[in-house]
């Protein structure tokens, strides 16, 4: 199920079509229509490497630096922002050296632009998320300031991660805009805007919680949407509590530092006990300062969770798009059905449905046979058009479902892999913390034994 990268000159094309009798597709959506396979467009099943292919094997991407800049914004006011250096290296041979091929500076808003573009052009893909715009889930030692060097550093890593995710996605990696993002610094924004993707964006997607009554929802998507909501909720909760836990743990360790000073003062008045107390105090200082590194490592775990918090949002977006598609389909089918009925009534003379024409006819007199004929003709044209559109919509819908579901499966496996790794590394962090604790207290105990 390969998809050719959208050509910038051509308007948005639907994905290559393949016949699919999806069991869950709403029966009304396929009202009377049997999906016929439109001829396959070229189906490059073997992933030919075009020059635009940025699948991970071929290149290395890194966001290596962050720099504070000042410039003028759209309203010609001075602003400070951070720019990130995006470097691309190509690897000619496996295990061979990598050669720097491209290097340019991007700011966060450009990353956002890229992502928004991808969301519009690949509605069936779970698009990788960006790191958070503003620092959230901070515990007291972390800064919520966007200019704070630690935040900037973690964001740098997050942006790099985003690019790597896109580059390793079998479909997204071929996108030309993505390619240009990595290779063409100037004018990139204009090119993206020229695609007109903002116009194509369905404004209804912005209304996240507006409900569209879909008569035959796809159960799988409904479940998936529900799952993504729950996942967002549980990870948010987890991150919030984790931040509080980090805060408390910090407090516990730091208070122990006070022992260092008081033991030292006490040792001054003691004879035999003095040395033991003094050296034990030193270990208490070591203990107290060890928490800083420990918690810094843990932030990495929090970032991994955050990525999936935002991924859940992306997942939800796909479900939402499907919902809207389904809704549009049902509306179109409904409209077609009502037109057909009107046509039938006109032809047979029976009035079953209310129509304005019918009313006026009653009020102002019947129309001439010629008038009726012309009306029937118009309706028949409309019906024919509607049937075509419905067919297209059906196929589009089925294709969407197929492709989306394929990506969702890919995403699920990625998620399970990544989160397991994250949990393992978290456990490893905890183990390391415990071992350090044992070490310090064993040292202290030995000092006490020499008192």
């Amino acid at each position, binding site marked *: 199920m390969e998809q050719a990268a959208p050509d910038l000159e051509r308007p948005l094309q639907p994905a290559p079509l393949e016949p699919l009798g999806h069991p869950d597709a709403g029966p009304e959506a396929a009202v009377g229509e049997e999906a016929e396979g439109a001829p396959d467009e070229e189906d490059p099943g073997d992933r030919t490497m075009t020059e635009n292919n940025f699948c991970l094997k071929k290149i290395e991407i890194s966001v290596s630096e962050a720099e504070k800049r000042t410039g003028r914004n759209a309203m010609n006011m001075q602003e400070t922002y951070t720019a990130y250096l995006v470097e691309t290296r190509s690897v000619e041979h496996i295990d061979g050296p990598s050669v720097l091929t491209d290097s340019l500076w991007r700011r966060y808003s450009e990353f956002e632009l890229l992502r928004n573009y991808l969301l519009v052009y690949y509605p069936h893909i779970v698009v990788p998320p960006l790191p958070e715009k503003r620092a959230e889930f901070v515990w007291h030692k972390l800064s919520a300031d966007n200019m704070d060097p630690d935040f900037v550093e973690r964001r740098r890593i997050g942006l790099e991660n985003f690019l790597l995710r896109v580059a390793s996605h079998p479909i997204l990696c071929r996108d030309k805009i993505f390619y240009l993002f990595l290779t063409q610094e100037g004018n990139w924004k204009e090119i993206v805007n020229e695609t007109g993707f903002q116009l194509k964006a369905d404004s209804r997607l912005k209304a996240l919680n507006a409900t569209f009554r879909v008569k035959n929802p796809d159960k799988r998507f409904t479940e998936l949407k529900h*799952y993504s909501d*729950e*996942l967002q909720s*549980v*990870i948010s*909760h*987890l991150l919030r*509590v*984790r931040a*509080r*836990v980090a*805060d*408390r*743990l910090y*407090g*516990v360790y730091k*208070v*122990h530092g*006070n*022992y260092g000073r*008081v033991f030292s*003062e*006490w040792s001054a*008045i003691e004879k*035999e*006990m003095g040395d*033991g107390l003094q050296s*034990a105090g030193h270990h208490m200082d070591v203990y107290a300062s060890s928490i800083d590194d420990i918690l810094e490592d843990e932030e990495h775990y929090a970032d991994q969770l955050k990525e999936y918090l935002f991924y859940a949002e992306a997942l939800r977006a796909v479900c939402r798009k499907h919902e809207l598609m389904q809704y549009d389909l049902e509306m179109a089918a409904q409209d077609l059905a009502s037109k057909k009925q009107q046509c039938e009534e006109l032809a047979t003379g029976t009035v079953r449905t209310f129509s304005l024409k019918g009313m006026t006819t009653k009020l102002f007199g019947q129309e001439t046979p010629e008038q009726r004929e012309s009306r029937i003709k118009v309706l028949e044209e409309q019906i024919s058009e509607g049937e075509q559109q419905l067919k297209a919509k059906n196929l589009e819908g089925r294709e969407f479902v197929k492709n989306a579901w394929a990506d969702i499966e890919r995403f699920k496996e990625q998620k*399970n*892999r990544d*989160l*397991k790794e994250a*949990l*393992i590394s*978290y*456990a*490893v962090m*905890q*183990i390391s913390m*415990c*071992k350090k*604790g*044992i070490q310090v*207290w*064993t040292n*202290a*105990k030995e000092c*006490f*034994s020499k*008192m």
Partner: protein
Amino acid sequence: MSGGLPKALPSTGPHSLRDMPHPLAGSSSEEAVGGDGTPSPDLPTARSFGDKDLILPNGGTPAGTSSPASSSSLLNRLQLDDDIDGETRDLFVTVDDPKKHVCTMETYITYRITTKSTRVEFDLPEYSVRRRYQDFDWLRSKLEESQPTHLIPPLPEKFVVKGVVDRFSEEFVETRRKALDKFLKRITDHPVLSFNEHFNVFLTAKDLNAYKKQGMALLTRVGESVKHVTGGYKLRSRPLEFAAIGEYLDTFALKLGTIDRIAQRIIKEEIEYLVELREYGPVYSTWSALEGELAEPLEGVSACMGNCSTALEELTDDMTEDFLPVLREYILYSDSMKSVLKKRDQVQAEYEAKLEAVALRKEDRPKVPADVEKCQDRMECFNADLKADMERWQNNKRQDFRQLLMGMADKNIQYYEKCLTAWESIIPLLQEKQEAK
């Protein structure tokens, strides 16, 4: 010593007064005795100051450390004490088995006191009595009264804020029991206090209340004489060593206070950490319910955190029950020691004042009146007892703190080991099935 001597024989003080020849007077034993009461018929009088021979009121042979003696031999015996481990100990006291008594007027706890001894002061080799806190309090007062030149160990705090602490909770009772046990053991280990009559009665009497009511003034001679020391004399100069002890105790108490506050703060932070942990773990469980392949790993993490929470709770309980009370005990100890130091100052002040008064009168002969001699004896006795006790106290303090701090380190090690085990055990769970997929 059997039979002949009255049971009310005091165990210290007067012997040393009588035995020590007065430094100002000649070596006549009569003068040394000074005429304040007839010596016990069985008591031999010793001549030499600093005699290494143990003076025994009961006339028996020295049985290791069982007998009181002159202050010099007291010091010697202290040295002997250090060399002796449990083998030649002849008195063992334990506090255990707390029981709640519900009466119409009140509810209270009693503890069983078990005594095993080969000392002749005890009629039976073994005793078992029940005592309540009040009784301990009474004992301590009596010891302070009758042995004012010695350092009396502290009791756990008497009053507890009602509503904050449950007087009948297992933890509180156990903490108190340990402190009471320590109290009695410290007295048992003391070469002078362990022979105190009140202590003996406390350990053995079936009806302690009846004895209390008798109100017998079983003061030692020194106790008696120190009791009458009037305050109001200005101390000229404190001997260096006692000044040093005073300063030491001041700083010591200060540092302990700081440590107490730090320890309390740590426990508080740990409890708050525990509260958050107890919310944190279950969220992984909630998440687990949403997932398929991740369900087991997430549930495993949740269970692991539950184990860590339990371990943390055990740590905070231990610190509250075992660490803090001992710190507080030592703060009380040093407070009571400072009072004894003050009393010593008063005794010295009185002596100096009287001596000066005599010097001023300048009678025909610088014959030292008896009461001035008494003052001097009193002072020197006090100094000697206090010095000996301080040395003993310093040694014990060192042991106690060594044990206390090692215990604290141990508890923390155990906590981390429990957590380590928990986390290490879920690594295989987290890693499994990845290959199987």
